[in-house]
């Protein structure tokens, strides 16, 4: 496999692009300039033709999403940037903005032109305090240079950008919860329909896009849909940011061609499993995506192939667990997260995640009962697809996938009355 010609990361070695002058020097805002001379429908069309899919997890086609926005409703339209990046294991949006904040503003402004929007809201997770400062400075610079404001590049078009800081709630990455949060309500998901494209922010037509998604847009405008499709697969074109964390030699954010086998990412980019140990389990797209195993090293990282392997590409957050890590312990920690972050609206999620944390915890502590394993299985089945939003499915994914691939390890916990890895570690087990 030839080395990737980097796209989103091609300026990562150049700290000057954090400022507007440096960004202009690498042809920054050329996409916005070009888009200002295009009809709205043509912008939507080129993004549709590129096959760009949402990078925030669901993989929905971006151009199609833009095309759903009704015009002439008499209401304003809004672009909302989802920079709430909170899926455990995911941090590529953080670094993309730290290194090149103007690319996000340019992509957002082009999205605004495509749907006739005058106000863009960027919802950034509260914990990204410094990244918010970087972004606000970029916004101020873009206003000063006329890339934002009442008369964008002398076109007479208005585009304002408002930065809105969250305050520590994973659920606000769910797009309708994000809208509620932005409206000054508790961040709980809304019933769909109506979909945000029709009734989103302030009951107006709204497009909500992930940071990485929007950062692909300027190049699609200047270089075209065919260029974008030179990388990736037919159904998953382009490059994708992945975050590799956990037990690897070189954790980090890497840009890959969609369709790159996981083995290449693990061994060539991340330097292999930490300390030369062997991999036990990994998540392809964050803790909410079903975990896979050492048997899945050759799975290609694109939307279809990961789905065929029984998981999801999600955000591309690869967390690696090795042979010394206890799957029950890791599952307990992951499910505890969903228990903490459940917004409380739906019973299967609110109660299920809480009870699952307790049962998993007692299994790990060596107090598991034989009936706990079928109980976990039943809980996983009863939580999956039974709640308002996908947060509950994260709980179920952890339970169901760990049981599916590591039933032996669960049974050993019950049989030994202890975590087998801890027992072996202190040399008690034969």
């Amino acid at each position, binding site marked *: 496999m030839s080395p990737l010609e980097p796209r989103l990361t091609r300026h990562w070695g150049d700290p000057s692009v954090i400022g507007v002058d440096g960004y202009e020097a690498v042809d920054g805002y050329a996409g916005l300039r070009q888009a200002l001379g295009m009809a709205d429908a043509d912008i939507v069309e080129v993004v549709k033709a590129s096959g760009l899919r949402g990078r925030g997890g669901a993989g929905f086609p971006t151009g199609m999403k833009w095309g759903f926005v009704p015009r002439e409703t008499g209401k304003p339209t809004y672009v909302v940037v989802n920079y709430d990046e909170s899926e455990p294991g995911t941090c590529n949006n953080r670094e993309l903005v730290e290194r090149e904040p103007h690319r996000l503003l340019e992509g957002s402004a082009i999205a605004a032109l495509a749907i006739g929007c005058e106000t863009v809201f960027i919802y950034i997770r509260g914990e990204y305090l410094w990244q918010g400062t970087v972004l606000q400075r970029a916004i101020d610079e873009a206003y000063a240079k006329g890339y934002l404001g009442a008369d964008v590049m002398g076109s007479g078009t208005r585009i304002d950008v408002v930065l809105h800081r969250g305050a520590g709630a994973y659920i606000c990455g769910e797009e309708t919860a994000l809208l509620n949060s932005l409206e000054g309500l508790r961040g709980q998901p809304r019933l769909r329909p109506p979909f945000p494209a029709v009734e989103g922010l302030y009951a107006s037509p709204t497009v909500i896009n992930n940071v990485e998604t929007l950062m692909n847009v300027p190049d699609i405008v200047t270089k075209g849909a065919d260029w974008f499709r030179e990388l990736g697969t037919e159904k998953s074109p382009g490059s994708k940011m992945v975050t590799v964390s956990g037990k690897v030699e070189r954790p980090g954010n890497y840009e890959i061609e969609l369709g790159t086998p996981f083995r290449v990412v693990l061994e060539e980019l991340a330097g292999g499993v930490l300390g030369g140990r062997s991999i036990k389990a990994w998540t392809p797209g964050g803790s909410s995506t079903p975990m896979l195993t050492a048997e899945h090293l050759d799975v290609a990282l694109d939307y279809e192939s990961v789905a065929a392997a029984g998981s999801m590409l999600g955000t591309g957050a690869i967390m690696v667990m090795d042979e010394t890590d206890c799957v029950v312990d890791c599952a307990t920690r*992951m499910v505890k997260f969903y228990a903490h972050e459940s917004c409380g609206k739906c019973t299967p999620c609110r109660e299920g995640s809480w009870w699952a944390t307790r049962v998993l915890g007692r299994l790990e502590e060596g107090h598991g009962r034989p009936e706990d394993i079928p109980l976990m299985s039943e809980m996983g089945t009863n939580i999956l697809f039974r709640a308002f939003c996908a947060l509950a499915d994260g709980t179920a994914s952890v339970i169901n996938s760990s049981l599916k691939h590591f039933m032996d390890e669960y049974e050993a916990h019950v049989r030994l009355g202890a975590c087998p890895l801890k027992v072996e570690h202190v040399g008690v087990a034969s």
Partner: protein
Amino acid sequence: MALFEGRAGDEARRIVERYPAAHRRSAVMPLLYLAQSIEGMVTRDALREIGEMLGITTAEVEAVATFYTMYRLRPTGTHLVNVCTNLACKLRGADAVYEAAHREAGVSHGQEMSDDGLFTVHEEECLGVCDLAPAVQVNFANHDGVTPERMRELIGRLRGGDVPAPARGPAMPSFAAASRVLAGLDPEPEPALEEVPPA
């Protein structure tokens, strides 16, 4: 005395003006941060005053304030030490870092803050720094790859009145000062824009 008076009043009004006039309720989150920056926590008086400013009830403001973990409705230490223990950090030794934070700061589990009022220790869910785990924030400024030894040093320096430079961006001198930045207001003094080191 009202919280949003004088300069704070001007700042509160500027925050409200960020949002469409018909939707000023959107300002509730930054206003909660502003209140937190003034009093070091969100008080009941602040909830009432924000409600009055936005034309919503105190209960509606409280509903928001209690939903999000970054608003503190109980007395909080000068420094908020957040330790991520989620999976990517756990796999890199975060549990020991979290214990070290409690031990060094003199905060027992379940205790809101240390007896000297200097520290609150908070177990965090994923902070989005999985590539540089274990992730810690001191007043929401990041410290990467923290070990128990490094945690001891961080807390020791904070105790001595010195706020260690974080991995990226400026140090936040206190939880209250960080809350001011989170309200979208300029910190004082204005920090220099630090360059991110090349990959």
